[in-house]
């Protein structure tokens, strides 16, 4: 720093610690609540430290679910979330990288038209046109299928742009060299472009995995069979469980389970995550 002022330093740390506390406190409380029984959570003030029922609560949640909310095991919901997140992630990456490749490395009629079509979807989240999209999916007979759960969310303007920007920075000499070697466009893509995009793909993977895992409204609508429920939408059934009051220790347990996979991915691959986030939005 430019100068060293002890008061300013203390203030700096105080701000940061306060920020960390503000961000961590809710999850701390959720974690604590998930280790108690209904009794401890029935009236204020609720305990701030762990109870002894954590193991029982989590075993029940993972294997049997919450009877009051239909008794769908959270373990199964998490499996579905994982499948959905992975299909969306790989699907998005796959179709984006090839369409970006076409747009950057080829010249063909309607190229700009296609580009604009993809671009228009950039900020048109599914929530905005939810009813007709649902209608289309039902007409195609895709309700209650993994395809219906994932394919409509697979188009990605963001990923296409990221790859386009990246391809534009790759020197033209590489293409010329490939030409001299008589490598065709498919060879060039597989042997040169794909390996070069490794970091970008990995970074994008994290962002898209979180996007896929955190989907809520779409799975809520297209799944009517319990075998396809995902954990993020599943929690809604527990909070609004008909006439009964929410069973908070189970709800909080589910919230914790539902956030573990994406949070672990972000923390474990922090560098790539930051890169992915900052670059995909530029």
């Amino acid at each position: 720093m430019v100068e060293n002022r002890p008061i300013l330093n203390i203030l700096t740390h105080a701000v940061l610690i306060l920020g960390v506390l503000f961000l961590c406190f809710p999850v701390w409380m959720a974690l604590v609540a998930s280790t108690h029984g209904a009794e401890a959570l029935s009236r204020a003030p609720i305990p701030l430290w762990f109870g002894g029922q954590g193991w029982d609560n989590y075993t029940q949640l993972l294997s049997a679910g919450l009877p009051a909310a239909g008794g769908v095991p959270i373990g199964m919901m998490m499996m579905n979330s994982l499948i959905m997140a992975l299909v969306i992630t790989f699907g998005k990456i796959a179709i984006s990288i090839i369409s970006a490749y076409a747009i950057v490395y080829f010249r063909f009629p309607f190229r700009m038209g296609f580009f604009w079509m993809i671009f228009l979807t950039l900020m048109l989240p599914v929530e905005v046109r939810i009813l007709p999209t649902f209608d289309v999916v039902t007409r195609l007979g895709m309700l209650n299928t993994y395809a219906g759960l994932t394919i409509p969310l697979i188009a990605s303007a963001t990923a296409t742009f990221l790859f386009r920007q990246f391809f534009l920075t790759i020197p033209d000499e590489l293409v010329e060299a490939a030409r001299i070697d008589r490598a065709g466009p498919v060879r060039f893509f597989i042997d040169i472009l794909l390996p070069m995009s490794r970091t970008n793909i990995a970074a994008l993977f994290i962002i898209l995995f979180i996007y896929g895992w955190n989907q809520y409204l779409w799975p809520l609508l297209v799944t009517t069979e319990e075998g396809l429920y995902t954990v993020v939408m599943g929690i809604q059934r527990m909070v609004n469980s008909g006439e009964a009051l929410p069973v908070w220790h189970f709800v909080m347990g589910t919230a914790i389970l539902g956030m573990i996979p994406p949070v672990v991915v972000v923390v474990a691959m922090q560098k790539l995550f930051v890169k992915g986030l900052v670059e995909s939005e530029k």
Partner: protein
Amino acid sequence: MTIKTILTATTALAIAAPAFAADKAQVQFWHAMGGELGTIVDTFAADYSAGSETCQINAVYKGNYTENMTAAIAAFRAGEQPHVVQVFEVGTATMMAAEDKGAVYPVYKLMQDAGVDFDQSAYLPAVVSYYTDTDNNLLSLPFNSSTPVMWYNKTALDAAGVAVPTTWDEVEEAARALKANGVEKPFSMGWQSWTQIENYSAWHNIPMASEENGFASLKTEFTFNNDAVVNHIQRIADMGKEGLFGYGGRRGDSRGMFVNGETALWINSSAYYGGFKSDIKDFEFGQTMLPLDTAVADAPQNSIIGGATLWVLNGHKSDEYKCVAEFFQYLSQPEQQAFWHQNTGYVPITTAAYELSKEQGFYKTDPGTDTAIKELSLNTPTPNSKGIRFGNFVQARDIINEELEAVWAGDKTAREAMDAAVERGNALLRKFEDANS
């Protein structure tokens, strides 16, 4: 066999059943019974399936009443509808309109086609009249019906030295005494449109809409901005200002306030009985008839039901419908009905189940549990008290909720709110008329 063993045995079966049930006819049954109620519904489905060689009933919890009904309609549009869907009473008009167009398989016809004995007169008139067509044919199977009662915290009332109130004036006085004795929000209620407008009107024999509360035709128009209702709503709002009434949210959201003693007088469905019995440990509670507004009527008329019925949707195979018919017959038997009634607080929907409960001495061991059925059968229903039938009523209730909440928050007077609710509600009625004529 005791109830407990049935429960545990059938729950075990429910888990084991799907493994060897593949060759049975599969029936999808979507319901909105969360919590304890859901467990009993699952038990019924599993118990019936275990006893049947050809049928498997798959009971699926689909969220609250609104979510369950809308999910079923969306599924119908998609051709993925369940066989049986539980629809609450306010969705009746929508389902009836759908019956005209062929989406619904009426229960009387289902039973006929399946050759299952079915005696409509076994059901309580107050319940059945809500769900029959103009030729007195039953369209859906009454399953869980309740009516609002006033729940009271006896321990708190005794401590404050007041008797159980029977009129609204007494409610106010009791609330004052309770407040003075340290009860935070003495009075509260849930399902406010149902308890404070629909049932208030029926209880005092005043119409809430034209055309016999919608039974006579789709041209019906709301009239619940009359003086009686407006004054009643204003009374509750004034109680709120005085700290005697505390609003605790829509539906049953305020249930917790009664359970933990914040509230001592709570008007809501009789069906909270089962939950209260297991949750309330530290005070004595009871239920009594709805209070009378002496400025409006000298004696109460009768209350109207709430709750839900089971509708059968078209588009499946006949052997599956045979299963549905048999399952319905199973559900209507006095044993099931009495068990359901005694464990949940829903009214017994057949006379036989009511008699059986009496025989078993249930009303002696659990005094007050016949309050609901007494309210329903107090007098012969008049056009004002036999029920209501409005299109788009799910949305209309939302509007009423919104307007009432504006009153409780002090943003509107009761008059302004009721006028607005009627105007907005009528727009919905006209839209329903246009879409269904």
